[in-house]
């Protein structure tokens, strides 16, 4: 995530590619209909005509399609005792779960990016056991809003409709007969070893770690061959599979990358020359590992592999390279790591009483309290009830009491580290030391930490909220200094993280290490006065949201700027020269 103006412009896409994406999505749909064991499709798309048309095609495919609402509970997913019906009927009534009713078909999961880890786990298990497909509709906007990684890994096709509009779609329909015929042929399709090797080699060359990817690609190739009426997987089938399955998962480009299309012009006046490209630094190990397998690609066995690789490469979206590093976060840690710590309001924790409600997802029936609520009415109900035999307990829906639970909200500490050249450079090491001490403290309290660094023309999330201290430390260790002070962009970035943390049930705390001398505006241009005004506005927004904050003045001579910033934030102000790390800790604890 880069919050400077420069990256806010969408990377430009070649003409006609939207139509190609649409075609690929339709092909993926056909292949899925031919072989449901391909897992499914992760469709990243805003709600719109293109998505609607695609889903309409899905409905034509002959597969059973069931919708899964966001935030589905276990009862609805797995089935179970239907309490209300049971009481009405006087005998156990079971409700059929979604997984059961969709067997052999496809589940369409709305808002998959918000699916909680437990549901994702059950879906993953259902996908593994086969006989069920999943279409994960992902409406995420921010790059870190994604369907759970455990699911993405199991879905063969990843399609992004961000740029596709209804104009790119065509009126093509699906040939149900053709699909059924292809399905019948599927069992007899063979795949040569060379195709297998080529797909594995391509996956390795594209830096795809999971072995599921080549396996799914092989299945896709086979389904393509079945569709084309071939008895053996041809080179075109394999190339198609590589394009559809492997390309969207690429984490490296195998050969020297083609000249990268400019993501946007650098700001007219970069405060320091080395900041012209605020590229995310290779913050951690995965990057190093990625470089390692690259030489493998030089010994790609044969021509087949090259053709397939080329096909996959051509399908790698243009903006991918720029996002690759950030995908390290996404793929490996982001969504799952954060979801694990999410405190669902009242789903877990210690009991703090009861309230009247029907038990449902995440609500636990309190039997004793339910009986207590029903007790006073027993005589009246026994007298009026016609159905129930005498001696039976008369429970009604309104008697249900559920336990209220309260969990200790976790804290997410968001560090905004000023790495600009202005004044922090001299004290950057000191600031890092202070952050590391705080990190050790967060570790003891099992807090989440996030790190945002800002310098030059933008702020950058070095580390999304995580409990992994090693990563936090690594992300800081290599932090370079220099450049201007884009304070407003930094506070915005911190504010967004804090809001996300709050939505996840955590209590955010912002810790700013800066001298407060903002001189870069949100637009990435210079101009001290505008920059200061913007920073103050951003700070007031944080204050209005009622978020706790702490400003550590890192300038060598504490000045009015940081103090003013602290006032705007409603934050505690601590000039660094007068504190040691221990008192910083005490101050954060106090907040």
């Amino acid at each position, binding site marked *: 995530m880069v919050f400077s103006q420069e990256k806010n412009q969408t990377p430009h896409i070649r003409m006609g590619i939207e139509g190609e994406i649409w075609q690929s999505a339709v092909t993926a749909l056909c292949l899925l209909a031919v072989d449901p064991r391909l897992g499914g499709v992760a469709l990243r798309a805003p709600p719109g005509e293109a998505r609607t048309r695609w889903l309409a095609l899905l409905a034509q495919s002959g597969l059973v399609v069931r919708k899964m609402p966001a935030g589905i509970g276990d009862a609805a997913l797995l089935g179970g005792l239907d309490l209300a019906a049971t009481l009405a009927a006087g005998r156990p009534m079971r409700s059929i779960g979604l997984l059961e009713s969709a067997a052999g078909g496809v589940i369409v999961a709305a808002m998959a990016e918000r699916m909680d880890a437990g549901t994702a786990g059950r879906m993953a298990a259902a996908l593994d056991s086969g006989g069920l497909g999943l279409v994960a509709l992902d409406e995420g906007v921010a790059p870190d809003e994604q369907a759970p990684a455990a699911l993405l890994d199991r879905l063969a096709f990843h399609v992004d409709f961000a740029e596709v509009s209804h104009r790119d779609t065509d009126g093509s329909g699906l040939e149900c007969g053709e699909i059924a015929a292809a399905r019948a042929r599927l*069992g007899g399709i063979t795949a040569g070893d060379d195709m297998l090797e080529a797909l594995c080699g391509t996956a390795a060359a594209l830096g795809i770690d999971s072995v599921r990817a080549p396996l799914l690609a092989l299945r896709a190739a086979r389904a393509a061959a079945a569709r084309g009426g071939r008895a053996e997987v041809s080179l075109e089938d394999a190339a198609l599979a590589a394009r559809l399955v492997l390309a969207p998962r690429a984490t490296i480009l195998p050969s020297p990358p083609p000249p990268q299309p400019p993501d946007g012009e650098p700001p007219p006046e970069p405060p320091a020359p080395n900041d012209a490209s605020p590229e995310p630094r290779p913050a951690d190990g995965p990057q190093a590992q990625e470089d390692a397998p690259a030489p493998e690609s030089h010994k790609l066995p044969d021509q087949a592999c090259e053709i397939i690789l080329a096909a996959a490469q051509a399908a790698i979206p243009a903006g991918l390279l720029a996002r690759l590093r950030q995908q390290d976060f996404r793929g490996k840690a982001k969504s799952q790591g954060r979801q694990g710590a999410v405190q669902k309001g009242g789903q877990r924790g210690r009991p703090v009483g009861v309230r009247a409600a029907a038990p449902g997802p995440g609500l636990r029936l309190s039997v004793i309290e339910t009986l207590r609520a029903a007790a006073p009415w027993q005589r009246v109900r026994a007298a009026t009830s016609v159905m129930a035999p005498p001696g039976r307990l008369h429970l009604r829906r309104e008697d249900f009491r559920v336990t209220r639970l309260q969990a200790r909200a976790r804290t997410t500490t968001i560090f905004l580290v000023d790495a600009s050249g202005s004044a922090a450079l001299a004290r950057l090491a000191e600031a890092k030391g202070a952050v590391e001490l705080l990190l050790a403290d967060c570790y003891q309290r099992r807090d989440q930490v996030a790190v945002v660094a800002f310098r030059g023309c933008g702020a950058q999330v070095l580390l999304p909220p995580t409990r*992994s201290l090693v990563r936090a430390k690594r992300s800081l260790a290599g932090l370079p200094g220099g450049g201007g002070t884009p304070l407003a962009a930094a506070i915005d970035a911190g504010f967004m993280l804090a809001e996300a943390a709050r939505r996840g049930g955590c209590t955010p705390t912002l810790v700013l290490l800066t001298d407060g001398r903002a001189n870069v505006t949100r637009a990435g241009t210079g101009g001290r006065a505008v920059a200061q005004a913007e920073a103050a506005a951003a700070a007031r927004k944080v204050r209005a949201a009622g978020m706790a904050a702490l400003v550590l003045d890192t300038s060598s001579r504490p000045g009015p700027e940081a103090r003013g910033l602290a006032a705007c934030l409603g934050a505690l102000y601590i000039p660094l020269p007068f504190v040691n790390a221990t008192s910083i800790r005490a101050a954060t604890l106090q907040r």
Partner: protein
Amino acid sequence: MRRSFPFAAIVGQQEMKRALLIAAVDASIGGVLVFGDRGTGKSTAVRALAALLPPMRVVAGCRYGCSPVPDAALCSECAARGRPLPEAVAPVPVVDMPLGATEDRVVGALDLERALTRGERAFEPGLLARANRGFLYIDEVNLLEDHLVDLLIDVAASGENLVEREGLSVRHPARFVLVGSGNPEEGELRPQLLDRFGLSVEVATPADIASRIDIVRRRDAYDRDPAGFCDTWAPEDARLALRIEAARALLPHVDVPDSVLEQAARLCMALGTDGLRAELTLLRAARAVASIEGETVATVAHLRDVAPSALRHRLRRDPLDDSGSSARVNRAMMEVFDSGPHE
């Protein structure tokens, strides 16, 4: 039901396979922690191992899978029945624990259906009861709530689940091999919890293309024809099953000489592990490995085999120090074992 992927057909992942075999031979080892990326065959290996094990004798109709052999721990229902207990045969269970599982589902709770429709107070067993005498597999154990992990390890160590809630008081045997998996990049397990897992292994996707091709080829063959594929590997799986059975029988007779004990203690001292759990696990694991190899005496070579798995996760560490713990164990082994015995 579909047959599981054969254990013998799993490509590579030697350390994980060995750790699982050790746990299968000696369940008291205390669970296996598997750290690694997605798609490295963690859950496949657990399922495959369970399928490999011979079906177990159970008390017919028992919801907790009690063992009918004399002086086995019994649930209260079986204990109340007269002997001899009726017998049945059941496969070794593998129970998946989903990340969002509530405490109710794990330990069991009041059976609502019976409470509401018949007014009976009955216990509905949870995942722990189903996992009795089998495997409990937790994906992403590092993301599980601490209190649940605590509870699981407690039960796994004591072999008994004690439920006191909603006017119920139930006690039933729950002996299982806890297998937790996770990716340390996504969050860490508390050191106290780490220490309570017996063995830990690190898995990674094989880096060479040849083994990846092998993996995909075998998996694909299995997917296309599970029965045929399993039949091909059946002889090898059977051999492995025999080895496990032999090892289980041999285990009580494996001798650990004092010199090996001393080496184990010195290794743990050199690494500065807290408490004696490290030594105990190291010895048990070495003994299990010896029995798997059909030997009656555990040697330093066996120690070497298991030391990284047994000790890697117990090193006291600075949370901010990221030097690899495997490397530290190997270094300490070189220092301790290769310097020759002290007198």
